[in-house]
């Protein structure tokens, strides 16, 4: 697989590092990562950078992950890019809300590299 550019949106810098490490362990060794600490920062980055994958937390201050995904679609930013939500919220209702907002996948924290591999790599098959 060629270089994959991923945007990781999480208000926790430690979680952003864990997500990046898991992506590399899942096989995306030549990964280019952009980091955002909030949905607002994520939208700003996407105005100037092209990415192949977006991973976003849900529970964040200022703009949560669901609103971030809605805004992505509204502003037609990264329209074809798969978004995977990574969150501690794991009920069916939360998954449904994420899918309705436009997410293509859902991973519950904490997660293993294998779970990331199973849920993220299939979304990149066309990259």
């Amino acid at each position, binding site marked *: 697989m060629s270089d994959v550019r991923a945007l990781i949106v999480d*208000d926790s810098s430690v979680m952003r590092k864990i997500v990046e490490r898991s992506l590399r362990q899942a096989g995306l060794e030549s990964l280019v990562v952009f980091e955002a600490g909030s949905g607002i920062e994520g939208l700003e980055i996407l105005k100037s950078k092209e990415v192949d994958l977006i991973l976003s937390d849900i529970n964040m201050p200022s703009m949560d992950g669901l609103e971030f995904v809605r805004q992505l679609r509204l502003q037609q930013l990264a329209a074809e890019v798969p978004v995977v939500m990574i969150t501690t919220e*794991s009920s069916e209702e939360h998954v449904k809300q994420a899918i309705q907002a436009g997410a293509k996948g859902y991973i519950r*924290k904490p997660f293993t590299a294998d779970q990331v591999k199973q849920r993220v790599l299939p979304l990149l098959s066309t990259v």
Partner: protein
Amino acid sequence: MTQTLRDSMHLVSDPDHLDESVREVFETLFGAQCRGDADVDANDTHEPEMSVTAVVGFGGILSGACVFRCDALAARQIAARMAGMDFDTVDDIVKDAIGEICNMLAGTWKGKVPGLAANCGLSVPAVITGSDYDLHVQAPEFRICQAFRFENTRFEMTIVCDGLQ
């Protein structure tokens, strides 16, 4: 008749949910097990030395908080395992890591209680550091407090509920 969370108090306040949540989170994150430590007093909320306390609030059909408490050395060691780097002090990254651990524990715990996952929200974590403070909740509905050992560190987990529908 509609079943309320209060009707299932025995399930909500079951200490096994907290125990399972802690073991599950640590095993998934670190690939290592932590074990219970019976040496804990649920009524002892006083901090005898420099400690790190993370709090994630619950809101919705259950209100209260999930509290993770450990000493500075344990916080640095747990953060080192999460971030893949060493820490000499309890800096912002260590506080961030301990807040995230608490967040994951709170989310995992509420996912184990029937009816709670979808109807109880989590706040973003708050982290307190210091050496002389008490954690006080006025007349809680229930409180579960357990201590654990992970590698050579010790930490305490508390679920305190001050409102239940």
